């Protein structure tokens, strides 16, 4: 009894700590339905590929993703990639120009990308990124989903995707009356303080999806957030599937041990 009470109190308090710690005067992004949610959640490959298309065509103009390689998108990538074949990955990489070298003349040179290259960054350094974006450097998006999000959803890994979706769909053309918007900033409902240096990157039909899906703003934002969630933790499907097996095994083992314990202790009473 007392054991239960203590464990219950402890777990509530533990769960409360991170929420409490991040609870500020900020708006919590509304919760979305994600294919990867829940115990058996998996990534919708179509959504991942559309999300990559958005990153590739839009976000990559400003945001790096330094922890990813092009090969990660293919069948041998972590978590089995996002459903591209090796040939498709090679083609995607080949469209990029990568700086390499030095060659035997001691000079740096540019060559088409290869699958083992990391995603090419839009700016050579933070200073350049900052200078080109009105003083705020666009953050690297590799693990942005794990680095954002608050509230209960963060606990099971949906707070980050909710947040990214919220930012992408949270722009207002006009700030509420009385709000002083700094020159060169944009009003965003979800961003802390509501003034963001990122111009609204997405709108209806910003991209033309290769698979024919209608490119509404919310569809684009949803796919982009799904891709970024995969990017932040490409092994998530494996984690959840391994988890189900491990926990079933542990439950069975614990059941057997409980039976054994009862038997051993029976003769003591």
């Amino acid at each position: 009894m007392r054991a239960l009470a203590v464990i219950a109190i402890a777990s509530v308090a533990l769960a409360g700590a991170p929420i409490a710690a991040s609870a500020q005067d900020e708006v919590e992004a509304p919760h979305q339905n994600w294919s990867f949610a829940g115990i058996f959640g998996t990534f919708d490959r179509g959504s991942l590929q559309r999300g990559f298309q958005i990153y590739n065509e839009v976000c990559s103009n400003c945001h790096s993703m330094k922890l990813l390689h092009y090969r990660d998108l293919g069948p041998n990538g972590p978590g089995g990639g996002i459903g591209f074949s090796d040939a498709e990955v090679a083609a995607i990489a080949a469209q990029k120009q990568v700086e390499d070298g030095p060659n035997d003349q001691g000079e740096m040179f540019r060559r088409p990308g290869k699958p083992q290259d990391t995603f090419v960054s839009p700016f050579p350094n933070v200073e350049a990124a900052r200078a080109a974006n009105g003083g705020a450097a666009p953050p690297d998006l590799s693990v942005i989903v794990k680095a954002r999000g608050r509230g209960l959803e963060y606990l099971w890994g949906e707070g980050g995707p909710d947040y990214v979706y919220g930012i992408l769909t949270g722009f207002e053309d006009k700030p509420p009356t009385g709000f002083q918007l700094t020159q060169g900033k944009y009003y965003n409902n979800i961003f802390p303080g509501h003034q963001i240096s990122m111009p609204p990157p997405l709108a209806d039909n910003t991209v033309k999806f290769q698979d024919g899906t209608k490119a509404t703003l919310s569809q684009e934002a949803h796919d982009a957030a799904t891709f970024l969630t995969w990017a932040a933790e490409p092994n998530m499907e494996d984690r959840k599937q391994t988890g189900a097996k491990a926990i079933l095994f542990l439950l069975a083992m614990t059941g057997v041990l409980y039976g054994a314990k009862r038997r051993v202790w029976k003769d003591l009473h």
Partner: protein
Amino acid sequence: MAGTPSTVRTNSRLIKWIDTRLPLFTFVQDAAIDYPEPRNLNYFWNFGSLAGTMLVIMITTGIFLAMQYTPHVDYAFSSVERLMRDVNYGWLLRYIHMNGASFFFIVVYIHIFRGYYYGSYKEPRELLWMLGVVILLLMMATAFFGYVLPWGQMSYWGATVITNLFTAIPVIGNPIHTWLLGGFAVGNPTLNRFFSLHYLLPFVIVGVVGLHLIALRQHGSNNPLGIAVKGPQDEIPFHPYYTIKDMFGLGVFLVIYAIFIFYLPNALGDPQNYIEANPLQTPPEIVPEWYLLPFYAILRSIPDKLIGVLALFASIFILFLLPWLDTSRVRSSYFRPIHKWVFWLLVIDVFALGTVGAHRPEGAYIVVGRIATFYYFFHFVILLPLIGWFERPLPLPESIAAAVTKKTAAAPGAAQSGAVS
């Protein structure tokens, strides 16, 4: 053959041969098989072996993590991410270790409160208890160093805030600070030495755990009734009774731990730590890991920095004095009608401190933090000695065996000694 032949119960001549020369098997037989334990231990007595298991899990996963980890400010963050992406089951290794730290503390905190409730620190177990407090201190240091290694924002700023505490010491504070960090600010030399210490301290903990166990064996375990073992009728051999009970408890524990590893791996962490450390950008709030929050709250509740730091250390060091601060002659709170309730005040107080530690010191949090800090010390320094003098303990049972057999006849002891079921 001269000397005493092995007394190990086995038919294997090889084992007998070895044991006669190197009595490992005898040692195990004495320490973990025949070893007599009180017969009424309840499930709170599982937490010691759970803590030992956690220590082994942390060291094993840590050694493998260290094979992939690069202790350099430019590579630390990405080396941890690489491990999680590109190394087979690297994510599992890291999540076991990361959540393992939290679960290690959950287990040890329950273990400590168990000792407090049942008076396990009382004569003749004072040194056993004090060695436990040493382990707690070493664990805190280890976890603090470990949290710096992934080199996220909270790693960096947590290290900055905590090491900065040393500057509160008059005169020599600043030189000590620089000496500890290997520079004027947290940087690459700091990361290198923290990695070194993070690898070292767990093995120091192993050593102190060894002493803890030697001290334990000297007088045996305390028990929920807090009365001494009076004879063989009060005891049962460790094996099979407590081996099976410990294993069942371990099973339950692993299920909960696994739920976190596989489904809530980042729930106990701070999202800020997935942002690479940036010395030029202070995060909106700097909070330590949850298990250090109560102490952090004590530090921040006191307006003066130096006194705050002293209070922080005092809050842990006071535990060393607990055997003498508690003046009651009776060990178990079960027989202490007042302390039984006052115990829960301390539990509530520690949770209140934890909550305060997680929030910016503003408004009500300041007030609650100060009251809770005051109560923490008041509890140990004033309340505990007084209660010990004024409280009239309930009559103690003659022996464990007597209490246990009476229990089957539904005597009041039943719920508490709750053990033999």
